[in-house]
């Protein structure tokens, strides 16, 4: 029997707003525990939630990028449950009326393009972070109240590759729109996968298993492929799949049981009475969308149509927001986009790789990279010499022209200076003039060589040659 996998993905994205979803405490990653906390985050009696405007703007931007219908009236609900990490004893979320509904995203797989439908996008607040030790647990409320958006796909993902591409797309959108760091390894983008199998052709759903703890794109793919095989083997040997939560074990490269699912918890949802419904004006929504930083798809389009890059280069540049931002800044200084792209993808990439750095850590400013490339374009230095200049400025962001001068690399293109050297050389070598007049073309090469020698190699050979020729013709 052949099976098909039915996969749905829930993604939680931590927003990088200045303050929390409902309080004015700052949002930061990696601060001392319990230092970014105010009475609202700790649920001190009498505190009240105030909706973070930037979080709403962010949610609108992502919803728009995912082609969703945006609800222009904001409603929040309480999700009630008792847990040690939940300060208020409830989480404020959007249950009944998520801000975004019914969207989709296009992904590209080895089998071509596919549309992944998205059911909903809503805003909510994060819980506090727990650290369980042998006999006690530690609670860090810095994370409590951090704004989240949750994106829930419809179950029309069929395999690990599609899932991975889907998560990659979401990650790209939240990163390029500046909504989130989108770092799976740091937990600012967390994804839970629901997966079940059914015989091909069936429209019923099988028993679903939830996989948590997927901290990289490749683990999403691996975990799903493993899980499909596991469930297939169970079904083929007549053992029913059990409803459970599993996690991906990175070292064993397999999913392992976390807990059996009992009856779903009743969260006793009801409308948050401390936030009266907020109407979003058309103008507010429009403005949020129009001011959204450029997304990857739009950048790619611009690189290809306006800057004339090929698809391959464009795809590489938009793989990382910081890289494409660097490229965009450099392009503004008018160097050739094609050369810039090459330098970023080859030389800078190699340097970063070798030194284990990110492009954000790079000393070299986009302006100076652009300047370096312009020196090549203007013929002031050769591509080969540019590599030597690069080796210096990549460490200290010095001006490329200064470094080229210091290294004695800049070609002499000043006609007057070259002309003086030419006159000297012609004076010293009358025989060569004679030889040239007698048809010995080699004499020209000799004279050019003499000028190069006098200029210590800096005279522009093409210019020199042309100027000597002009002089010889006059004689």
């Amino acid at each position, binding site marked *: 029997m052949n099976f098909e996998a039915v996969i749905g993905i829930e993604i939680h994205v931590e927003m990088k707003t200045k303050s929390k979803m409902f309080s004015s405490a700052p949002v930061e990653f990696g601060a001392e525990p319990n230092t970014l906390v105010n009475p609202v985050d700790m649920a*001190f*009696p009498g505190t009240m939630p*105030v909706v973070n405007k930037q979080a709403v703007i962010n949610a609108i931007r992502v919803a728009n990028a995912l082609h969703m219908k945006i609800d222009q009236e904001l409603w929040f609900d309480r999700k009630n449950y*008792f847990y040690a990490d939940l*300060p208020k004893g409830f989480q404020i979320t959007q249950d009944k009326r998520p801000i975004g509904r019914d969207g989709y995203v296009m992904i590209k797989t080895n089998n071509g393009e596919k549309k992944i439908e998205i059911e909903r996008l809503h805003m909510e607040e994060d819980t506090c972070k727990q650290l369980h030790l042998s006999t006690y*647990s530690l609670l860090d409320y810095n994370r409590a109240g951090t704004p989240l958006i949750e994106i829930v796909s419809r179950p029309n993902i069929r395999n690990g590759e599609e899932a991975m591409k889907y998560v990659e797309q979401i990650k790209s959108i939240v990163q390029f729109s500046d909504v989130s760091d989108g770092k799976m390894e740091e937990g600012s983008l967390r994804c839970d996968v629901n997966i079940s199998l059914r015989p091909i052709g069936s429209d019923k759903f099988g028993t679903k298993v939830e996989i948590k703890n997927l901290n990289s794109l490749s683990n999403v793919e691996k975990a799903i492929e493993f899980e499909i095989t596991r469930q297939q083997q169970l079904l083929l040997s007549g053992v029913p799949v059990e409803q459970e939560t599993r996690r991906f074990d990175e070292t064993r490269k397999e999913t392992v049981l976390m807990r059996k699912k009992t009856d779903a918890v009743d969260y*006793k949802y*009801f409308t948050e009475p*401390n936030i009266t419904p907020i109407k979003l004006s058309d103008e507010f929504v429009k403005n949020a969308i129009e001011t959204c930083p450029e997304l990857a798809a739009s950048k790619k389009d611009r690189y290809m149509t306006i800057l004339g890059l090929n698809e391959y280069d464009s795809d590489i540049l938009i793989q990382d927001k910081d890289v494409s931002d660097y490229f965009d800044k450099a392009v503004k200084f008018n160097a050739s986009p094609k050369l810039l792209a090459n330098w970023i993808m080859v030389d800078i990439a190699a340097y970063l790789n070798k030194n284990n750095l990110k492009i954000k850590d790079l000393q070299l400013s986009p302006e100076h990279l652009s300047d370096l490339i312009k020196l090549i374009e203007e013929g002031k230095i050769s591509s080969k010499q540019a590599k030597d200049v690069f080796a210096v400025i990549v460490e200290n962001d010095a001006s490329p022209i200064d470094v080229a001068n210091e290294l004695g690399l800049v070609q002499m293109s000043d006609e007057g200076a070259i002309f003086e050297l030419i006159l000297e050389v012609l004076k010293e070598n009358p025989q060569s003039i004679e030889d040239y007049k007698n048809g010995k073309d080699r004499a020209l090469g000799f004279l050019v060589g003499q000028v190069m020698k006098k200029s210590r190699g800096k005279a522009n050979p093409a210019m020199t040659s042309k100027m000597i020729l002009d002089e010889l013709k006059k004689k």
Partner: protein
Amino acid sequence: MNYLDLTIKEMHEALVKKEITPLELAKEAIKRAKADTNNAFETILEDKAIEIASELTEPEENNLFWGIPFGIKDNFSTKNILTTGSSEILKDYIPVFNATVVEKLLNAHAVPIAKTCLDELAMGGTGTTGHKGITYNPYDPKHERLVGGSSCGSAAMVSAGIAPFALGSDTGDSVRKPASFAGLVGFKPTWGRISRFGLFPFAPSLDHVAYFTRSVEDAAFALSLLAGRDLHDATSSNKKVDDYISNINDTIKGKRIAILKEVIDSIRDEKVLTIFNNTVEKLKENGAIVENVSFDLKLLEACYPTYMVISCAEATSNNANLDGIKFGPRYGGDTYQEVMCNARTKGFCELIRRRFIIGSFSLMRENQEDLFLRAQKARRLIVNRTNEILNNYDFIYIPAAPNIAPKFTDSSDKLSTNYLIADNILVLGNFAGLPSITLPIGLIENMPIGGNLMGRKFEEKELFKIAKNIEDGTGLYNLSSRKLVK
């Protein structure tokens, strides 16, 4: 005469003329608070009051609250001052911030005298369920009658002449009912008019900051100080704060007043009706048009169950932070579930636990449609009918209670089959978020009884005007048990 027995306005005049100082007032208030026999107080703020009052030397002529002693119901967060909600679970809780209303009063240089008792976490209407026990009605030296709740301590404090003003909160009738039993003006504004930030939530969709004074005019002054937008409370209104004072003595000629027929019909005490009718006659004499209006018996009968379901549902969620981990003492337990379970079993009185269970039950997935959502629908119908009446009339006027303060032996917070419309009618003002004021309209056997007015949203100004007219008619101004009870 003692200056502490004056209303805020009179006291202010005496302060401005330097006939009395804030320190002298504070000392007298503290003395009276210490001599209190009604169990009005959680904490008497002797040092704080003396410290603040000592610094007040130059009277501020345009600041009515300068140097005025006041009380704070113990469910308002007060920075560095114990705030218990009269609950065992918060018996050691010292907040790190002031409620917005407390902050406003302190900024106006009013002098806090005490944190006052309440029914535990403001849930209850009898003043008997706080962790310090029963609060008594100052009008009844035999201590047989309740003062009403949940703002029992604030009511007792103002009624006993310990301060001319005290903060309370009103979710069903928690200020306006005790005001009737204690001979006071009890006022709650439109929902959103005063910030609730720092008020321990009971049921936020129904909760209001409210307060007691001994005159209608004082209530108007207090609203001028406390009303306004607060960035900490997203539900607080942006609407401009009115001038509540200038036109308070204007004529009420042509004003239309609706009296709810079913409420009157449900009142058995003829004396209450006589007193009420006398005020109605006065209103008519003064040019108001007063008519009996039928509300809808079914809707009125639904008020109490609707209130119970909604308020308990919200309450169970609001108080979920009191779990023995973040707040409340550790009562032991091996797992977090046990710690929470122990804290929430031992930390609350039986009444609270019952309400939490009712609330939780009505929110359960299988019950929500039948209970919580149905209650929401009932609320909407009740609100619609109320607003319909207020489209035709400027005010709704009713007795604030069907009787004078009952004896403890006759009262219970438990659900009973003996349901009285007039006992549960003030909640209309909470359902619809309308401004509402109770004021004394008479005395029966030396015990006060009040009338209650409700007006349209954000029309507090009009409400004070009509209330002032009734007050002028009865002459029941600045009542206190100190004058009546010997």
